C-alpha cells in the first residue's frame, strides 16, 4: 500500500514538473527571448489558459503528500522552512506578474510585471532543482526524523549540509537549463514568426549544454550518494530509464531540426518525466535520506499514514484524479494549435 502511494505521489510530482515546467521555462525566456511587447503578449497568451491549472498539480501533490506520508510532509516542510516560504513568495510574485500585467493598463508598470514574472520563474526553477538535489543528497536528520536545514553552511555536501552546496546548486542549474529547453519547445509549438524562430534557436544553443550537464550530473550524484545505484543493481529493468532519458534528449534535437515541434516538445516531456522517474526509482523506498546515521532516514514505511486510511483513500483519490485528468485533456484539446499574433489588440 505504501508503495502504491509512493508511485502516486511521484506521478503527481512528475505531472507537475512536466506541466508547470513548460510555463516556468516560458518565464525564463520572457525577458530574454521575447523582445517586443507584442511578443511578450504572445508568449503569455500561449500559457495563459493553462498555467494556473498546472500549478494546481503542485497543490494537489502537496495535499496528497500530507495525507499519505504525514511524517515526510511535517519533517521536510519544517526542515526546509526558509526555502519553502521563499517558494511561496515566488509563486505569489509570479502570479502577480502574469495577472496584473494585463489588469492594470499602464505601460510603465508592464516592465515591473514582466520582471517579476521572469525573475520569479527563474528563481523558482533553481529552487525546485536544488530541492531535488537535497532529496537526492539527504539531510542531517535527527533520531526523531526531524531536521532544520540552514540555507548554506560550507557549500559541501558533507554530514551537515545546507540547502545550497555545490551539488544542489549544480542540480538547480541543470534544472534551469532543462526547464528552459522545455519551455522554449512549448512556446515554439504554440507560436509562429520571429518568436518561434528564436525559441528554436534557443533550443539548439542550449541542447549541447543540457547534454553535458546531464552527463555530468549522473556520476556526480552517484559520487554524493553511492546507495542511489542499489535499485539499479537489483533490478536490471531500471536501466531502461537512462535509455529513455537519452532517447528524450536525442528526440529534442532531431525533431527540432526536422521542425516537428509537437514531437520535439513530447520528447522533452519524456526527458523530464524519465529523469524524475529515474530519481524516484533510485530513492525507493527512501523518501528523504539521512546524511548522517542511515537509521534516521524517512522511508515509506515509517512515514506512511495508517493502512486503513490509505486503502480507503485509493478509491476517492482514483476517482478524483481520473476526473482531473479529464479536465486536463479537455483544456489542452480546446487549446490546440498556434496562438496568432495581434489578436490581443483587435479581438
Amino acid at each position, binding site marked *: 500500500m505504501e508503495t502504491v502511494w509512493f508511485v502516486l505521489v511521484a506521478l503527481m510530482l512528475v505531472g507537475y514538473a512536466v506541466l508547470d515546467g513548460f510555463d516556468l521555462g516560458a518565464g525564463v525566456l520572457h525577458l530574454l527571448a521575447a523582445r517586443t511587447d507584442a511578443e511578450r503578449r504572445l508568449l503569455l497568451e500561449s500559457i495563459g489558459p493553462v498555467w494556473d491549472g498546472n500549478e494546481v498539480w503542485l497543490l494537489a*501533490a502537496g*495535499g496528497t503528500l500530507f495525507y499519505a506520508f*504525514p511524517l515526510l510532509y*511535517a519533517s521536510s516542510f519544517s526542515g526546509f522552512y526558509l526555502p519553502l516560504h521563499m517558494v511561496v513568495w515566488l509563486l505569489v510574485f509570479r502570479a502577480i506578474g502574469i495577472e496584473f500585467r494585463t489588469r492594470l493598463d499602464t505601460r510603465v508598470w508592464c516592465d515591473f510585471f514582466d520582471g517579476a514574472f521572469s525573475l520569479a520563474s527563474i528563481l523558482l526553477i533553481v529552487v525546485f532543482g536544488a530541492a531535488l538535489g537535497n532529496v537526492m543528497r539527504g539531510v542531517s536528520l535527527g533520531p526523531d526524523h526531524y531536521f532544520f536545514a540552514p540555507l548554506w553552511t560550507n557549500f559541501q555536501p558533507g554530514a551537515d549540509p545546507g540547502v545550497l552546496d555545490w551539488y544542489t546548486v549544480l542540480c538547480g542549474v541543470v534544472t534551469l537549463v532543462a526547464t528552459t529547453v522545455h519551455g522554449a519547445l512549448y512556446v515554439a509549438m504554440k507560436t509562429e514568426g520571429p518568436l518561434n524562430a528564436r525559441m528554436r534557436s534557443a533550443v539548439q544553443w542550449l541542447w549541447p549544454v543540457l547534454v553535458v550537464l546531464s552527463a555530468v550530473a549522473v556520476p556526480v550524484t552517484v559520487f554524493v550518494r553511492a546507495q542511489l545505484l542499489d535499485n539499479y543493481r537489483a533490478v536490471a529493468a531500471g536501466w531502461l530509464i537512462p535509455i529513455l532519458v537519452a532517447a528524450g534528449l536525442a528526440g529534442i534535437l532531431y525533431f527540432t531540426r526536422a521542425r516537428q515541434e509537437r514531437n520535439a516538445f513530447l520528447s522533452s516531456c519524456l526527458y523530464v518525466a524519465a529523469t524524475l522517474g529515474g530519481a524516484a526509482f533510485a530513492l525507493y523506498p527512501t523518501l528523504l535520506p539521512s546524511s548522517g546515521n542511515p537509521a534516521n532516514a524517512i522511508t515509506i514505511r515509517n512515514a506512511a499514514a495508517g493502512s486503513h*486510511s490509505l486503502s480507503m483513500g485509493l478509491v476517492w483519490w482514483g476517482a478524483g484524479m481520473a476526473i482531473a485528468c479529464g479536465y486536463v485533456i479537455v483544456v489542452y484539446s480546446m487549446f490546440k494549435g498556434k496562438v496568432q499574433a495581434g489578436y490581443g*489588440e483587435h479581438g
Partner: protein
Amino acid sequence: MDDALFVHRIHFAFTVTYHYLFPQLTMGLALLIVALKTLALRTRNPAYDDAARFWTRIFGINFLAGVVTGIPMEFQFGTNWARFSQLTGGVIGEPLAMEGVFSFFLESTFLGMFLFGEKRLGRIGHWWAAFLVFAGSWLSGFFIVAADAWMQHPTTYSRLPDGSFQVTSLWGVLANHWAWLQYIHTMSGAVVTGAFVMAAVGAFYVLSGRHDQCGRIFVRCGVIAGLIASAFQIFPSGDLHGRYVAQNQPATTAAMEELFHSQAGAPVVIMGQPDVERQRIDNPIAVNDALSFLIYGTTKAEVAGLDRFPKRDWPTNIPLLYFSYHVMAGLGTLFVALMLTAGLLLWRGSLFRTRWALWCLMLSFPFPYIANTAGWMTAEIGRQPWLVYGLVRTADGFSSNVSAANGLFTLLGYMGLYTLLSALFCSSSTARLKKARHPSRPPLREALRWKPFGSFWSH
C-alpha cells in the same frame, strides 16, 4: 516576540485572516452571479447579463487574490505546525487532499471559461461554467470547514501506537455534525459579505447618478440576498451552532459569554470588559436569564461557568474571545436591522429616493468582513488551548525545529508581500469600478485568455 509558539500562532493567524478576506467574497459573489445569470436566462432582460458581467470582472481579481494567499496556508501546516501535521495527517490530510483533487482542478478548469468564455460558450454553456465555478468554490469551502470541524470536534478516528490519528470512516469526518453546522454558518456569512458588497457598489452608482440601471439591480439583488442571508445567519444557523458549541465545548461557551461562575438563570452580557484576574465584568449591560434560555430553552437551566473547568483548560485569551464573539454577534444583529429597513423601503418602492438608506448601504460593506473575521476568531480562539479539542494541545503542535526568529522573519516577509498585494488589488479593483460597463474596448485580458479557445471553436 521570542516565544516560538507565539510566533507560529501569529504567523498562521495573520496569513489565514488576510487570506479569508478574499474567499468570503468569492463564495458569496459566486452564488449571486449564478443568481443574476439565472435571472438573465429566465427574464431575457439584458440588464441582468450586464450586471453579471460586471461582477465577473471583480470576481476574477478577487479569486486570484484568494488563490495566491491560499497557497501559503497549505504549506504552513507542514512548515509551522509540523508536529500537528505528523499526528493528524491521516485525518486532516484527507479533506485537504480531497480539496486539491476535487475542487482545485474543477475551479481552475472552469474559471478560465467563466471569466473569458461568455461569447464562445453561449448563454447556457456560460451559465454552466459559472455554476461549476460556484460549485468548486463552495466544495472547497466544505473541505476546509470539515478539516477545521474535526479539530473542533474530533470524530471517527483511532490512534496508532505512535500517537498519530487515522480515520476509521471517511464518511464520519465529512458527515461530522459540527462540520455541517459550521459550514452553513460560514457559507451564509460569505453570502452576507457578497450581498453587502454588491449593495454598496449599487448604492454608490445610484447615489452618484452613474450606471443607474445597473446600480439599481445591484442594490435590489444585494438587499434581498443580504436580508435572507443575515437572517439565516442568526436563525437557525447561528442558534444551532451556538447550542452545539455549548454542548461540546462548554468551557468555550463559558469564556465567550464571560460566565465565571456556574449559575441557573445565567445572563447574557451584551457589553462589558472582562477582567479575568478578578473574575468579573466591568461596566456590564446584561439580560438576565437569557443565556440559559438560548442554550436550553428555559430560563431556569443551569449553565456551567469557567469555575467548572481546571484553569489549564481555559481558552488562553479570554478577553479577545469575548470581544470577537460579541463583535460578531452584535454586527450580525445590526445587519438584520439594516437589511430589514432597506428591504421594507425596497418593498414600498422608496429605497432609491431614500438617500440616507443608500448611504448606509454604501458605507456598511466593510462590516461583514469584520464580522466574518470575528466569527473565525471566536471559533479558533475558543478552541484553545487545544489544537484538536481535548486531544492535542496547541503547545504540542508547532514545529519545534523552527526557531522563533525564523518564524518572525517569514511573518515579516508575508506582511510586506501582502502590503504589495493589497495595493495592487485595490488599484485594479478601483480601475474596474470606474470602467463599470463600457465595453467599447474588450478588456485586454479577455482577448489574452480566450483567443486560443477561439481557434478551437472557429475551426
